[in-house]
């Protein structure tokens, strides 16, 4: 395992110490238990927004804490959802009297831990609503399983809900917008290489020199299928098709197109994918009116990419465009 770390057991703590040293103007980092919170929290009279999940997906979620996005983020160990006490403490720290939204990615662990945190918050009289994000169309959905994973739509939901909270929407409304984002977004990812969990010390999976994994999860969980490496244009189509099928987009629709690096894929390749994506959508009469291209929800150093489409309407577009000032996303300020 080759990583710029000291001790695998201290990766998250030392990273957080680094964030604290680097960004004290934007966030406060609490180490017992781990959470990252807006420097000016709680914002009185504003709905608080808390998210969290395993570490290793940086800049998500800690990089999205700040004005116009999250009020707090709870990082777990690498790829391990955080614990209820982290979320509980974060919830208390951001409660400005209008309740707190929990944005939860749909993983059994995340869901159960956030549930327990909500129970604790409820005990203290803090109103909490949780919205579970499950946009990953790589997973065949079913009522009888854990459902789909939460991936790229989480980033979009955090930005959009952050803007809604900032403009003064109440908890029910912010939660409604969050569900709207989730309902109108779909994602699909792929990997060229595995990531290596520091404490595991070796790659989670092995891919041959000419293989790729389609439908990979952001924790290196195996995907839909393993297959021969294809040109970027074909891969783009393979990622896009199930997304289109899921969202049932039609001519004239407007979307936000999000091309994401799994961590180890350089920008140059993301733009090659974006190019094809834009061509394919253009052919279908769907217009990309907003986009996001870069490494926003990663899987350590994994090489690969994911595509997320979010169907936009005026409200979502306006909220997407609203000012935001976090470590990893900034505009209008």
């Amino acid at each position: 395992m080759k990583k710029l770390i000291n001790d695998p057991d201290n990766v998250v703590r030392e990273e957080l110490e680094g964030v604290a040293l680097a960004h004290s103007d934007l966030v406060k980092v609490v180490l017992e238990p781990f959470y990252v919170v807006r420097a000016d929290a709680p914002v009185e009279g504003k709905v608080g927004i808390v998210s969290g999940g395993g570490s290793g997906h940086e800049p998500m979620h800690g990089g999205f804490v700040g004005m116009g996005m999250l009020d707090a983020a709870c990082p777990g160990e690498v790829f391990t959802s955080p614990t209820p006490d982290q979320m509980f403490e974060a919830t208390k720290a951001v409660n400005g009297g209008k309740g707190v939204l929990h944005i939860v990615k749909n993983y059994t662990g995340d869901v159960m831990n956030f549930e327990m945190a909500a129970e604790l918050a409820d005990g203290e009289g803090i109103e909490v609503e949780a919205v579970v994000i499950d946009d990953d169309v790589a997973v065949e959905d079913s009522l009888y399983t854990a459902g789909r994973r939460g991936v790229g739509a989480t980033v979009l939901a955090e930005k959009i809900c952050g803007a809604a909270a900032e403009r003064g929407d109440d908890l029910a409304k912010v939660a409604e917008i969050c569900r709207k984002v989730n309902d109108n977004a779909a994602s699909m990812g792929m990997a060229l290489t595995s990531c290596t969990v520091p404490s595991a010390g070796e790659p989670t999976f092995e891919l041959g020199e000419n293989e790729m994994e389609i439908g990979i999860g952001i924790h290196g969980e195996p995907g839909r299928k393993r297959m021969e490496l294809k040109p970027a244009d074909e891969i783009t189509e393979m990622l896009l098709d199930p997304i289109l099928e899921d969202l049932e987009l039609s001519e004239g629709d407007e979307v936000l197109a999000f091309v994401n690096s799994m961590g180890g894929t350089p920008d140059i390749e993301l733009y090659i994918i974006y190019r094809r994506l834009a061509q394919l959508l253009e052919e279908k009469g769907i217009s990309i009116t907003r986009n996001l291209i870069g490494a926003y929800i990663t899987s350590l150093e994994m090489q690969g990419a994911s595509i997320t489409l979010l169907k936009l309407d005026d409200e979502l577009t306006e909220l997407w465009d609203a000012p935001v000032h976090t470590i990893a996303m900034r505009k209008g300020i």
Partner: protein
Amino acid sequence: MVTKQEVLAWLNALTDTYNENKQHLTKLDSAIGDADHGGNMARGFNKALEKLSTTEEKDIGKILKNIGMTLVSTVGGASGPLYGTFYMRAGGAVEGKDELTDEEVVALFAAGLEGVLHRGKAEMGDKTMVDAMTPAVDALREAVEAGDSLGDALQKAVDAAEQGMKDTIPLVAKKGRASYLGERSAGHQDPGATSTYLMFKAARETFAP
């Protein structure tokens, strides 16, 4: 009869076994999950053991509840709330006790299982820890009811857990992270069922040595 000392020995043995099997459990989790189950269990029990010294004066119920709370607040993931709830409920079932009758041992494990079912909503055959835990608790209860010695009964529980664990191999996961794999989850042993088997094995070795 299981003494508080034996319960403490069990928790020590569990910590050892999770430390020893860290790579093994993680390896199983790499195949159908995210390569952290070994680290999760080891981290949780090492922390729980560390805190144990401060609760050693307490009764078995409190000790187990504390273990559960530590697991909840240090493990995370799916196994944190699940095993956390297991030990909290198990502790609740034997509140105030300094030693346990065989029936109380059954009650301890049965309450733990119920907690897991409540928290995770998995059913038998979903390819989770429940697939090892349910047959193990059933076997334990039946054997104790049939008048077996606790040692024999626990051995039957271990055997049932082992069988349940192995039976997860061909299953297609319906719950937890492995369920995202669909058909591709078949052919791999569930990591959580494996850590559950190890839990019963450690109990067999320390409760009725």
